[in-house]
């Protein structure tokens, strides 16, 4: 870990030639996030006879990643939303050259004094404010659903309201086809149903976060959401995709009363509808919830593949392959009306 700290200090000296006596300490890896390695660290240096101390987050590409996205894609989202009503950490540097830390990375300011854990939403000081956090969570998601993707550099002409569902479904279908370690009859039956019954056209094409769930935002003990994280899967699409993903029972398992461990489902939907100005028609939402199951299973299937091929030795990947995959299949059967 000290070697990484030293190398990062050399990088900072390169980025800020005016900085003197650059030191990096208190570096620690943060658990979770199989798509990138995440580290917390303290940076200290002198500049113009002033001592500067900054707490930073370093997100480095892993040797192999579950979700194959360009880190500049994620960085662009932080740049676009920083300073807006959608709270995100301040993005600082994006570095594609592997000479500094062996792999590309980007750096953000740390939002301090916060928690992202699911556990903290149901126990601990913040749990007293979980309804407030929930209302804030779906209100912010409504704001994301109002965001024109062109603000982030996406070309919206590439995806039409009529066909955006197909682009997403085909993408995750290909992932399943490529990465499955065995036949997936539940997933295949769900894919056939989704193709037989397409959703209505999107009410608008907007920014879709792609992984908007409890666990991917920072909250404090007063019940404020301080930052929305993990933008690596953002894209232009139907905002119902994000709403459906946020309602996945997996994020509250085994709690069925409060989606994301925060709010009753109907209240979460109502908050989102008010904030986004869109309607979550039940049939359309069900399509996207089933899509959520397919996408989620595709990610768990990829996890199992990464681990089986020893591209990653993170035991979390084995855990999702062994356990989370089965939980998501049970949720899928429930949504299809096939559970007893």
């Amino acid at each position: 870990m000290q070697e990484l700290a030293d190398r990062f200090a050399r990088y900072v000296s390169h980025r800020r030639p005016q900085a003197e006596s650059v030191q990096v300490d208190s570096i620690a890896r943060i658990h979770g996030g199989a798509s990138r390695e995440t580290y917390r660290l303290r940076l200290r240096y002198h500049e113009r006879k002033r001592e500067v101390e900054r707490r930073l987050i370093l997100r480095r590409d892993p040797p192999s990643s579950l979700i194959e996205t360009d880190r500049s894609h994620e960085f662009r989202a932080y740049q676009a939303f920083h300073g807006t009503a959608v709270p995100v950490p301040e993005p600082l540097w994006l570095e594609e050259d592997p000479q500094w830390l062996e792999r590309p990375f980007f750096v953000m300011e740390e939002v301090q004094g916060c928690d992202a854990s699911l556990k903290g939403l149901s126990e601990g000081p913040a749990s007293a404010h979980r309804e407030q956090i929930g209302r804030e969570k779906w209100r912010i998601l409504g704001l994301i659903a109002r965001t024109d993707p062109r603000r982030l550099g996406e070309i919206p002409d590439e995806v039409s309201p009529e066909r955006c569902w197909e682009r997403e479904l085909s993408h995750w279908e290909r992932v399943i086809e490529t990465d499955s370690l065995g036949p997936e009859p539940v997933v295949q039956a769900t894919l056939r149903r989704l193709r037989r019954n397409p959703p209505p056209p999107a009410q608008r094409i907007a920014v879709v976060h792609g992984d908007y769930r409890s666990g991917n935002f920072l909250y404090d003990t007063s019940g404020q959401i301080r930052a929305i994280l993990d933008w690596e899967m953002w894209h232009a699409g139907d905002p119902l995709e994000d709403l459906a993903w946020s309602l996945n029972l997996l994020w509250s398992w085994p709690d069925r009363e409060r989606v994301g461990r925060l709010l009753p489902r109907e209240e979460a939907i109502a908050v989102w509808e008010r904030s986004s100005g869109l309607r979550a028609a039940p049939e359309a939402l069900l399509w996207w919830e089933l899509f959520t199951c397919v996408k989620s299973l595709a990610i768990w299937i990829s996890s199992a593949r990464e681990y089986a091929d020893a591209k990653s030795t993170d035991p979390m990947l084995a855990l999702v392959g062994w356990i989370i995959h089965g939980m998501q299949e049970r949720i899928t059967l429930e949504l299809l009306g096939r559970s007893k």
Partner: protein
Amino acid sequence: MKPEVPKTLQLLGTKLLFEIAPRLADDYGQKTASIIGGLLFTAAEEWDRAASRRFVENRELRALFADAVPLVRSAGLRTRLASAAEETDEDLRVSALEQSNATLRSLLIDLHAHVETLQSEEALRMDERIWDELRASVERRAISFWPL
């Protein structure tokens, strides 16, 4: 092997979860060790049932295929189903059972897709039966205990 493998894995998991992980200095190490401990509990459960659940599922699938043959319109699929229905598992090693299970589940996907294109009462009943089997297959794989 004595002590029995499931018991041994459970004790190893307990050691890692409750004694070793809490002593690790950093949060990342603690959480990673805890997940490995939890996975040892899962492996203990799977060890005991690994052959049984595959053997039972293969038997159920073959019985389902035998009943599906008369209503299938595609000659090629009918032949594959009839052939699979007549097979039995002679080699009871988990790897061999898993291989035949994968072949049978792949055939189940083809059968299900075909049945969905049919309109008869028999086809609807077969569709329901396939969903029953899918539900059972998910239940067979469910983990009863996760210590974290």
